[in-house]
């Protein structure tokens, strides 16, 4: 089906509740509906199997407009349909929950509630998920009139109180895990209720790494934000800045030159190799297989070297610019990358053999945490976690973007859906990426590296979807025509994949929990000012302008 057919089908399905149709982008149709009709409209899309719910974006249209807006983005291949629900801008507004129809919506709705103060009726009550425990009630950071001083900690309410612990009754215990725990490499908090060794309930609390990036983005200009979004996640930083760039370029109606797009795909490929090898090491470590951890991290240094050669940085590469890329690939670099890929491919094949034959590793992965294709679809899983269950969720294939039309990749799927399948999918995917990177290096298009971008981005909205190493990354960028964005909403793949852990831990042994956590490759986190440390007690912070002057002086005198 073509994009137009898909969009007209969606329009037809939503016709009974349609109040207004908008066409913000060529591949997107927005349908304005009222809050009461939301559940009916969602059910209609779901019954017809029209795509999946990708994200829910909440927006405050400003104090003068007196309106809030919630956008329910459904994606079907490259086509996107957003249900827009407009709400008055007051403190007691509510919207019906759709989490019983679409389970992953529960987390998105939680975000809508905490960030914008939209009460979700019919959702299972839960504690705070993102904001700190000592955050005052009725203060919502994504509201337009929010200021930091409104968010002073509430006295007497402890951030992070000690979790309920100990005997709940009989053999039942609550075991808290995290945010500082040997089985976790990143901060998150989980409470597993166990009966003997068997997990009977699971609960999670995020927000230890919640920094408030989306709000910060609204006060920084388009270029500064590039570096801010790169630091949403230090592991897949390139895909974050690439998604942001694609969104902004769409708004400005600028297309990056072919060479730049190819280099973007190349760096994304290298990043995927580094990310998956990193994951393999961490997963092996959780399984008690530290030898594999050390080997895969040793080999990962090869790709870190390549990334450093190409971009100058090991992590947070800043390869992207609005309208292109910063770094070119010379012949020597291409040669070095190819040599590195040769070595990596041999090693990846070796690891593929290890994870499918090593008896000890298999005892921790085979038939554990199995997710069927139907479950994967219902939970809204993304990326390798979904592909291991046979569900093809790969934006590079479904909604081709950037240079993937010239240098296509195929989606790797497995059918078993257990932890072993997830290992195999990730490793096979690397071989596909290596092949694509080689093709790019052999056929790198000639031409400039950047296209000219305007300083002010024209008003509009854009959705950018990208396949990050962990799954679909969703960016919603809105401009009012100024020097700063009006709203940037980020939905990272890990948020969708949590359900796989929480649902699958129940009924398993507690000992499997670290592997289940590692199995989805969680990523919790998903310009600068210079500091001169004079001594331990005093430090001096330089302002941006002083740093700039210092830089100019330094290069003058050099």
């Amino acid at each position: 089906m073509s994009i137009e057919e898909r969009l007209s089908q969606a329009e037809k399905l939503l016709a009974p509740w349609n109040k207004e149709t908008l066409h913000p982008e060529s591949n997107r149709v927005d349908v304005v509906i009222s809050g009461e009709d939301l559940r009916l409209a969602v059910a209609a899309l779901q019954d017809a199997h029209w795509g999946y719910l990708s994200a829910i974006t909440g927006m405050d249209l400003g104090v003068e407009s007196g309106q809030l807006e919630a956008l329910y983005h459904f994606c079907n291949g490259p086509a996107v349909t957003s249900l827009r629900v407009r709400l008055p801008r007051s403190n007691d507004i509510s919207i019906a929950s759709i989490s019983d129809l679409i389970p992953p919506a529960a987390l998105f709705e939680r975000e809508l509630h905490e960030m914008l103060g939209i009460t979700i009726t019919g959702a299972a009550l839960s504690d705070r998920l993102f904001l700190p425990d000592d955050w005052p009630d009725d203060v919502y950071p994504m509201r337009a009139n929010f200021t930091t001083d409104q968010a002073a900690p509430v006295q007497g309410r402890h951030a992070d109180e000690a979790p309920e612990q100990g005997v709940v009754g009989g053999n039942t215990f609550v075991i808290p895990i995290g945010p500082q725990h040997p089985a976790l490499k990143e901060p998150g908090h989980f409470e597993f209720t166990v009966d003997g060794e068997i997990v009977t309930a699971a609960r999670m609390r995020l927000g230890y790494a919640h920094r408030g990036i989306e709000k910060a983005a609204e006060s920084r200009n388009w270029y500064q934000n590039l570096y801010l979004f790169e630091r949403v996640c230090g592991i897949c930083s390139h895909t974050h800045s690439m998604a942001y760039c694609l969104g902004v370029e769409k708004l400005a109606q600028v297309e990056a030159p072919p060479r730049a797009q190819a280099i973007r795909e190349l760096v994304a490929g290298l990043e995927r190799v580094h990310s998956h090898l990193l994951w393999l090491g961490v997963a092996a470590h959780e399984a008690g297989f530290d030898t594999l951890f050390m080997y895969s991290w040793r080999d990962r240094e090869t790709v870190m070297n390549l990334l450093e050669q190409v971009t100058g940085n090991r992590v947070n590469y800043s390869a992207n610019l609005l309208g292109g890329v910063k770094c070119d690939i010379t012949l020597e670099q291409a040669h070095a990358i190819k040599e590195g890929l040769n070595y990596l491919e041999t090693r990846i094949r070796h690891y593929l053999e290890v994870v499918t034959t090593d008896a000890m590793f298999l005892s921790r992965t085979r038939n554990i945490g199995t997710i069927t294709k139907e479950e994967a679809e219902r939970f809204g899983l993304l990326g390798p976690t979904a592909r291991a269950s046979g569900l093809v969720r790969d934006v590079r294939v479904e909604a081709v973007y950037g240079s993937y039309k010239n240098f296509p990749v195929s989606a790797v799927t497995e059918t078993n859906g257990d932890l072993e399948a997830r290992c195999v999918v990730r490793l096979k995917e690397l071989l596909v990426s290596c092949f694509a990177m080689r093709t790019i290096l052999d056929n790198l298009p000639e031409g400039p590296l950047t296209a000219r971008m305007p300083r002010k981005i024209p008003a509009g909205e854009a959705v950018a979807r990208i396949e990050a190493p962990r799954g679909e990354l969703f960016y919603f960028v809105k401009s009012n025509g100024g020097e700063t964005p009006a709203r940037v909403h980020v939905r990272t793949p890990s948020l969708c994949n949590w359900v796989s852990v929480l649902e699958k831990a129940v009924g398993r042994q507690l000992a499997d929990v670290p592997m289940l956590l590692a199995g989805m490759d969680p990523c919790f986190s998903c310009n600068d000012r210079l500091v001169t440390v004079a001594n331990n007690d005093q430090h001096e912070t330089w302002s941006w302008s002083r740093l700039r002057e210092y830089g100019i002086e330094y290069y003058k005198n050099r």
Partner: protein
Amino acid sequence: MNTETNLGWANVIDRVRDWARQNSIWAVHFNSGSCNGCDIETLATLTPRYDVERFGIKLQGSPRHADVLLVTGPVTRQARERLIRTYEQMPEPKFVISIGSCSIAGGVFQDCYNCVGSVDQVVPVDVYVPGCPPRPEAIIDGIVQLLTELRGGKARQPKHVTAQEIPS
């Protein structure tokens, strides 16, 4: 035994302790809201290419076994009290290495509503390692600076142990 010899023995034991400490630093890593960049580089420091284990440095799961707290990230409000608790659980003498620009002054996350801003506003810091993220070599250099200070008898100097109250 008279007092003088007592003092002499105490001195010898202290020096043995210093020597042992320099050669077996156990570290615990705390992520206080970092983007993962520094955490990954910290972990890379322990793996074969950089291999700080050859200096006796080992990453430890529990703060109760650790000498050094490696903190990354701008300290989010939710992580703040857990950081203090982790610090207080460590046995004396203890040291803190703050890794990365955001843990030093907030980095790109300056003025974000959920960030305290820097690690030294929450717990006393001994070594700062700048960078976004710092290279493993820089992290090793930070550790070496700490070791140099330990050689100078830093562990025997009294220092305040309670976490500082953050100015609101």
